[in-house]
């Protein structure tokens, strides 16, 4: 079992301040470890990987890893990631978001990225709360939970991210927890390796903002609860309604094999360029004129 931590140190940016910024017992550190092990396990070089993060506690992960990284704006990580993937399909694009980031501020980007099936591994670090901004109710806060903006209990129903991503058309949808790091490593690894839009929901406790308001004495209490709640999807499917209460299925929920948007685009591009008029529209080796290229492409029959 040795060398796990040593391995992680090879991928951290040691000019950053450590220990990292996450609170004691925050699951984000474990998720960060899983991400690094998944990349290492796939034998990817640091330069082949791009980590695109949004805003929130989860966004800090991009700061610590020694890959190509972009720390973007709130909710928009997927839009940056989409552009990167379309421009450089060879890169492995990993998008890290929180629950508020992915499902509220960036909710539209999430469903459309899934619908387009753009080749991105999307990791949604779900801690059921807006941690960084003061513990407000998020789209995944469980009904009845107390938060800074629901002091008497949340009245809204949370999103089921797995159902949402499945319905929107994602190629691969999985859910893991930071209590089961081995499983999480495997899920993240599949998400990075597979074509198309692959989403992993990562359940990760936030004691500071969520736990303390909801009768969890300490971070360990939250991990105990997670350990109890998480059951393999296969077992969960045989559970009765009563047994399912307060349990959360984990594992792989969707595995489709549709080509990603960037692949479909390249196929279309190649087909168009194979036509004589399209070939004429290719840029001249020395200084091409974008206006004339556009005009020529317009002449290409569809």
């Amino acid at each position, binding site marked *: *079992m*040795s*060398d*796990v*931590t*040593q391995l*992680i*140190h090879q991928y*951290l940016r040691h000019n950053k301040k*450590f*220990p*990292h910024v*996450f*609170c*004691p*017992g*925050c*699951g*984000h*550190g*474990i998720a960060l*470890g899983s991400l690094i092990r998944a990349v290492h396990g796939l034998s990817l070089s640091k330069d082949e990987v791009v980590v695109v993060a949004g805003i929130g506690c989860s966004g800090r992960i991009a700061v610590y890893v020694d890959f190509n990284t972009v720390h973007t704006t709130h909710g928009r990580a997927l839009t940056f990631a989409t552009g990167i993937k379309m421009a450089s399909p060879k890169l492995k694009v990993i998008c890290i978001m929180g629950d508020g980031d992915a499902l509220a501020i960036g909710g539209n980007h999430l469903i459309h990225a899934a619908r387009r099936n753009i080749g991105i591994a999307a990791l949604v670090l779900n801690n059921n709360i807006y941690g960084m901004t003061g513990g407000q109710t998020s789209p995944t806060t469980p009904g009845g939970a107390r938060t800074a903006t629901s002091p008497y209990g949340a009245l809204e129903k949370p999103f089921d991210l797995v159902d949402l991503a499945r319905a929107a058309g994602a190629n691969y949808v999985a859910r893991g927890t*930071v*209590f089961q*790091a*081995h499983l999480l490593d495997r899920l993240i690894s599949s998400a990075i390796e597979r074509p198309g839009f692959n989403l992993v929901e990562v359940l990760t406790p936030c004691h500071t903002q969520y736990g303390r308001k909801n009768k969890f004495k*300490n*971070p*360990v209490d939250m*991990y*105990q609860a997670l350990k109890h709640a998480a059951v393999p999807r296969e077992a969960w499917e045989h559970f009765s309604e009563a047994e399912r209460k307060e349990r959360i299925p984990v594992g792989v929920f969707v595995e489709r094999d549709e080509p990603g948007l960037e692949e479909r685009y390249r196929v279309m591009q190649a087909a168009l360029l194979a036509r004589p008029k399209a070939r004429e529209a290719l840029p001249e080796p020395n200084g091409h004129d974008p206006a004339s290229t556009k005009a020529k492409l317009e002449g290409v029959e569809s």
Partner: protein
Amino acid sequence: MTDRHKGLTEVVIYPAWCKGCGICAAFCPEKVIELDAEGKARAVRQEDCINCGFCELHCPDFAISVRTKEPGADPGTPGYKPPAKGK
């Protein structure tokens, strides 16, 4: 777990990186780790570690390294050879 897996590892904890969350101490199956008076994790029962790796994988702060000892470094472990008596 059987005893024959014990004693093969050294659990190293970096106090500067430990935030004292207690995950390692709570879930170590052999109760190898405890929090000290300052709230930092300490491997108090090294010899009981079965090298399951839980603590190293689940420390959110990368503060634990479970290292394999040189085989036979300790008395009672496989491959142990008592030091030769000096001539």
